[in-house]
């Protein structure tokens, strides 16, 4: 069949004061009608730029400098802005990452749909209205007549993304470009949206380009895959071929870095293809090391015991108690973590897993229930000396490495702050010595000491967070989605680092993630959370092989099955 879209030798450069940066280099792709092409790559690989280049929406100072974009045998680069208006929406539709921000918040979705239908199809009045209703039905929105009058904030994330898809389809386009369409969504919503896109693609014979960093998404939906690295397409081919026997070295290491959901392996195969990515960290000789000094204190076998933990947030304040509206974020949660164990908490967003972490860390007050750390009750006794001593042994690593480090402090100040606060160093020299040493252990090196957080990438910042947590000489680490904002290759490095540190320092870990394969690789035991309560607690292998609870089964069923596609050579 004839190609719907053919891009030949596309170059896109960004012109800045410091010279031009080549974002896309000599990229060539093709899409047929009824075919889904996945463009995969890590952040900064230039994959979104290709999508924007097709409909000529590259933000200045970006510019297409070379190449042809043939769409239905027309070169889009030769069209002027007015002709481009007839292509956008009518011929090529676009879906963006965040459904929260891609809809105008102050207008009803009906108004936004109708104006799009008016301008792309030149249908007005009753016909346009009927068309809008049909579109909403086709993307699976129930009671479309009533929903037409609703504002975007009255929809859930998944429903909003359906509206966005309806808007993209309003002009009956032949090609859909979906830029990370499910990244902001939960796993179960993600599966629904991907199914919808796939179904529309088959039904309407659309060409679809899915731009994503998530190989799981690609394996679920794409027919063919283009792998991007550093602005170039390194490999293109059928999805089975790419996932099972990739030719390019980068693709191989990228695939190896994806956490496996099927079997537990000891370490992640880290991507060694990327220059400078292989940061080796120094091993810790626990016996004579500062970090090991207090490890020998004999403590109990059980690190954390939580019984009937409850926490609710006030959603709406009111003078009278009966008028207040609460959100029960955590409801009767009980579990215990053995010393040296990694305990996982998994669940979708809003399931209360982060709230549990904050309650355990003493960052939120506990409504009801008890939290015992090394046999010490810490519930709501923030000023108790013994509680403070226990809390020092418990440190946290947060999800967002950008906001969890104080931008105005140097790395040295950040890392030494807990040591100075707890006065665990004997002299200034020792303090410096420890800070240097910690940076070596997290694989950053001494030169990082005098820099500021903005000079580091996301993965490096997360290493700084880990060093900061270690500086308090903790016995327990709480990791709240430590890698969910990182690329897979970086994630593999960070998770390996955490595994090594745990092994060396015999740390106890509470590991929170929405990502099942990561949980499988990291945890000894897992609790599945939903609506604030625990559905099931089981050994990791048992949970993944024979889940008992219905919701656990549902969650596991949604897990992308890419490794079943892979051959055994990886």
């Amino acid at each position, binding site marked *: 069949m004839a190609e719907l879209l053919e891009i030949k030798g596309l170059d896109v450069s960004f012109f800045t004061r410091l010279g031009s940066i080549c974002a896309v280099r000599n990229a060539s792709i093709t899409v047929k009608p009824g075919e889904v092409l996945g463009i995969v790559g890590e952040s900064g690989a230039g994959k979104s730029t290709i999508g924007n280049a097709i409909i000529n929406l590259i933000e200045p100072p970006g510019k297409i400098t070379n190449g042809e974009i043939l769409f239905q045998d027309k070169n889009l680069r030769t069209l002027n802005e007015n002709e481009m208006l007839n292509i956008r*929406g009518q011929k090529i539709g*676009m879906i963006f990452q965040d459904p929260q921000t*891609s809809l105008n918040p102050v207008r009803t979705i009906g108004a936004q749909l109708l*104006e799009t239908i008016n301008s792309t199809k030149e249908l007005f009045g009753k016909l346009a209205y009927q068309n809008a209703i049909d579109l909403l039905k086709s993307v699976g929105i129930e009671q479309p007549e009533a929903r037409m009058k609703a504002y975007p*904030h009255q929809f859930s994330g998944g429903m909003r993304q359906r509206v966005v898809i309806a808007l993209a389809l309003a002009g009956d386009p032949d090609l859909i470009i979906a830029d990370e369409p499910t990244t902001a969504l939960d796993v179960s919503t993600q599966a629904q949206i991907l199914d919808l896109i796939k179904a529309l693609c088959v039904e309407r014979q659309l060409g679809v380009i899915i731009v994503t960093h998530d190989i799981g998404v690609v394996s679920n939906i794409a027919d063919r895959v283009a792998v991007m690295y550093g602005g170039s397409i390194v490999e293109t081919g059928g999805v089975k071929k790419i996932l099972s026997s990739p030719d390019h070295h980068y693709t191989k290491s990228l695939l190896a870095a994806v956490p496996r959901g099927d079997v537990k392996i000891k370490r992640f195969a880290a991507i060694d293809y990327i220059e400078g990515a292989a940061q080796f960290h120094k091993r810790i000789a626990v016996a004579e090391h500062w970090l090991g000094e207090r490890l020998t204190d004999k403590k109990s076998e059980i690190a954390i015991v939580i019984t009937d933990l409850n926490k609710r947030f006030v959603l709406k304040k009111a003078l009278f108690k009966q008028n207040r509206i609460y959100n029960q974020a955590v409801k009767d949660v009980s579990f215990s973590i053995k010393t040296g164990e990694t305990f996982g908490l998994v669940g979708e967003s809003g399931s209360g897993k982060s709230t549990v972490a904050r309650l355990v860390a003493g960052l939120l007050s506990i409504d009801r229930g008890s939290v015992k750390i090394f046999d010490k009750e810490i519930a709501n006794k923030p000023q108790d000396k013994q509680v403070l001593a226990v809390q020092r042994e418990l440190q946290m690593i947060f999800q967002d490495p950008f906001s969890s480090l104080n931008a105005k402090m140097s790395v040295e100040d950040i890392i030494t702050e807990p040591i100075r606060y707890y006065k665990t160093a004997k002299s200034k020299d020792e303090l410096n010595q420890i800070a240097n040493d910690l940076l070596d252990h997290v694989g950053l090196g001494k030169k990082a000491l005098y820099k500021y957080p903005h000079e580091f990438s996301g993965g490096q910042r997360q290493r700084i967070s880990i060093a900061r947590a270690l500086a308090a000489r903790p016995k327990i680490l709480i990791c709240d989605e430590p890698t969910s904002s990182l690329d897979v290759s970086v994630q593999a490095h960070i998770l390996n680092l955490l595994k090594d540190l745990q092994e060396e320092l015999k740390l106890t870990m509470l590991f929170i993630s929405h990502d099942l394969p990561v949980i499988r690789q990291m945890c000894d035991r897992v609790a599945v959370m939903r609506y604030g309560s625990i559905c099931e607690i089981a050994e990791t292998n048992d949970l993944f092989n024979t889940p008992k609870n219905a919701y656990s089964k549902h969650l596991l069923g949604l897990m992308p099955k890419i490794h079943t596609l892979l051959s055994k050579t990886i």
Partner: protein
Amino acid sequence: MLAFVIKRCIQSVVVLFVMSLIVFSMINLVGDPVDMLVNPESLPEEIDRVRRDFGLDQSVQVQYWKFLTGAVSGDLGNSFIFGRPALALIAERFPATLELATCALILAVSVGLPLGIYAGLNPDGWGARIVMGGSVLGISIPTFWLGLMMIIIFSVLLGWLPVSGRGETENFLGIESSIFTVDGLRHLVLPAINLALFKISMVIRLTRAGVEEVMALDFIKFARARGLSSPRIIRSHLLPNIFIPIVTVLAIEFGTLIAFATVTESVFAWPGVGKLVIDAIVNLDRPIVVAYLLFVVTLFLVLNLIVDIIYAAIDPRVRLQGDR
């Protein structure tokens, strides 16, 4: 909604009470009005009689209690100088000020908004730079100086417009205003522009910032990706979003236009409330000053309430406290 309004009204009464307490006790610290009212060469008995007549011989607490009981029934006291109710005097002068402030607000929006949108959409163009430079000037030039310069140029040197005062007024549909006569309009032009200039600059800057912020958002990009034309994007996606902050700020600014038109009114001898209050301060006419300040507080309270209601009306995401 109703619960919200009732709650706000109760809060307003508290604010007014506290304000009256502060104003009344402060103003009693400033000077002796009797000195201003009586010929200094009068006999001491005469001076004492005046003091008694105005109730100024009593302690501040007693005076305040009298004021408060009067205020509850709507009587804020009589002017020392005019011998008439202070509130009635303010009400008499208010239409002139309202007229001036309204014209200034209309000017600010009709000039500031288009220029701000233009500057926001073409941030690097020469036109935008001239507009933004002009807005800096408009914010920094003192109102009184500009007023005097305008009088010198347009009234004295060119002789195009009258120097000062309010022109003929005419009653139209029950509203007594000078905008219905040519003479009235000629008198209105200079003070209105003078008062509006600062607000025009403010609206330009506010709009420009709003446009730049909203144009960078995803939904504008998505609107472009769906093939909507630029005028359509500006009309139905950009404007509703930038109006939210602008409307809220402008409603409060309308209050400041009314309350602080004093300078312009003095320069152009505009017979509004501002002129009345300046004279009252100079003559230590306490009841008028107190009544005026309470009037301004009430004005702001009402405007704030209106802002909140408008805000909920134009931004569907906002739900008022106390709403279900």
